[in-house]
């Protein structure tokens, strides 16, 4: 049986939900080995919280990861991949994961596919391109199949893992140490779910006029993440990290609620693949209505509080 590597996806020192999704995808293709890369002294705690179909773990602790970033991660993974020759390597599709995948592809002479939303047993990846308007099936034909997989697109098997663990000592090559990170400021996570992992996302745009209270109120009633259009983040109304769209995050939740967002193509590119789309907008002509399963033409400051009340009433 072929061996598939996944890179354990961490948020701070915690294993993200995406990791089990990577393991689930990997198990379709072969036996899964999870690579844990972390600071000295931290891997045991990470390994103990892994879930999903993971057969074994290769754990490398290094001081250099925090000081040298992406190139250092990619260098250590490339060394392991060259040595153990897995058939595939799966990494979470975000800025950090994609850059690592790109560098490992160069170092190991391998092809790369990014932003897969599904992976079949034979390694065929499904991607939704051009803002979700086209489905593409493709496969890597050279080297290790390096693929990055979008969070929240594969239904994870989260059974407890009881992998065998191999602790490996490796040092980062000098060429991967050319950048020095002098300070790191992680974004403080609020109480709401992570945008790309959330089952429900409620987003606000220009129509909020900078007041996100109604959007946040509905989001909290639904247990949802809060998103924002580029207009809202450019105006400084909501942090850039919450931007949904072409240059922000791509989300595909079960339910996407767009409030006061006109639906420029750049925004649609980031949310078009949501299962159900609900829209609240004053402008009956807003293009976002074209892709809405349910649309309310109305003032979000009137509609959202009533919807919030309704959701709370039904939940209690």
């Amino acid at each position, binding site marked *: 049986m072929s061996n598939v590597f996944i890179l354990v996806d961490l948020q701070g020192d915690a294993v993200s939900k995406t990791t089990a999704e990577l393991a689930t995808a990997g198990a379709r293709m072969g036996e899964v080995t999870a690579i844990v890369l972390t600071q000295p002294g931290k891997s045991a705690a990470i390994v103990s919280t892994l879930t999903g179909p993971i057969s074994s773990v290769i754990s490398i602790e290094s001081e250099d990861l925090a000081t040298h970033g992406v190139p250092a991660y990619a260098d250590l993974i490339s060394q392991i991949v060259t040595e153990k020759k897995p058939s595939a390597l799966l990494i979470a599709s975000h800025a950090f994961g994609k850059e690592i995948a790109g*560098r490992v592809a160069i170092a190991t002479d391998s092809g790369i596919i990014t932003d897969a939303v599904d992976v079949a047993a034979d390694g065929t990846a499904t991607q939704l391109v*051009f803002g979700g308007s086209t489905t593409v099936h493709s496969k890597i034909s050279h080297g290790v199949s390096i693929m990055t997989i979008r969070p929240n697109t594969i239904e994870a098997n989260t059974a407890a893992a009881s992998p065998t663990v191999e602790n490996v000592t490796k040092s980062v090559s000098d060429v991967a140490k050319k950048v020095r*990170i002098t300070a790191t400021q992680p974004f403080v996570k609020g109480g709401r779910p992570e945008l790309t992992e959330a089952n429900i996302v409620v987003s606000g745009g220009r129509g909020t006029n900078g007041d996100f209270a109604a959007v946040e109120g509905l989001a909290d009633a639904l247990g949802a993440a809060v998103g924002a259009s580029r207009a809202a983040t450019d105006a400084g109304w909501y942090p850039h990290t919450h931007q949904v769209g072409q240059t922000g995050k791509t989300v595909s939740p079960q339910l996407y609620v767009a409030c006061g967002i006109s639906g420029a193509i750049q925004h649609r590119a980031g949310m078009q693949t949501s299962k159900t789309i609900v829209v*609240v907008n004053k402008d009956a002509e807003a293009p976002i209505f074209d892709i*809405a399963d*349910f649309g309310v033409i*109305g003032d979000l400051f009137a509609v959202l509080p009533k*919807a919030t009340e309704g959701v709370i009433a039904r939940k209690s």
Partner: protein
Amino acid sequence: MKIAVCVKQVPDSWAEKKMINGTLDREGVDAVLNDLDEYAVEEALRIVEAHGGNEEGGANSVTIISMGPERATEAIRKALSMGANDAILISDGALAGADAITTSAVLAKVIETGGFDLVLCGTESTDARMSVVPAMISARLGWAQLTFAGSVVVDPAASTVAITRVTDAGVDSMGASFPAVLSVIEKINEPRYPSFKGIMASKKKTIDVRDCAAIGISVQGAWSLVADSAPRPARAAGIKVTDSGDGGKELVDFLAGKKLI
């Protein structure tokens, strides 16, 4: 300081895109300079302007590098009209449908021989959206990778560059010595509109068009092969109601009917 800016010509964001034989049909659509690359052009110009400008024959220069069909000269002209000095376009029929692996190899090959101190890129192209080429160029050249920059500070005397990296995960301060490959995020600046003078001047600027043989690279086929592609059915517009006091309630009823709450 010699700065290279990598740019790509892409279909207009509003154009309807389709696949032909596993690659994007680039013929039938309006093509523009990838708007995320404009931030890189702007940042390069600001860097040289802060250190004596990029007058002809001076110490600083900004060179645009692109790979694409001959038609990509249109997008390159825009970058030149913003104020870049000159451009290199690698254009070869063998590069049609090239993947990121090949693109990064071609760009790295040209950069390697150009004597550049810094390479600036946008964070992604709006068509392929992979966001991997800057990291791949850095890996191929063995240069420092300073990507997703929300701010850039260059010290030419010390030959160093420092950035703040802004991603999902947080903000990192990092730095390196020249040479380095940077990508810049869209929040970093407000790209200038080309002036009339800039547009006129750009017509006299050189775009050096080279093929694969001229840069000394042989092209391999793409290492990711498209088996099939199909347009997804357009989302049909669903129910639309006008709020007359109970729009919020109707919304909740819809969610309940779909078992979403």
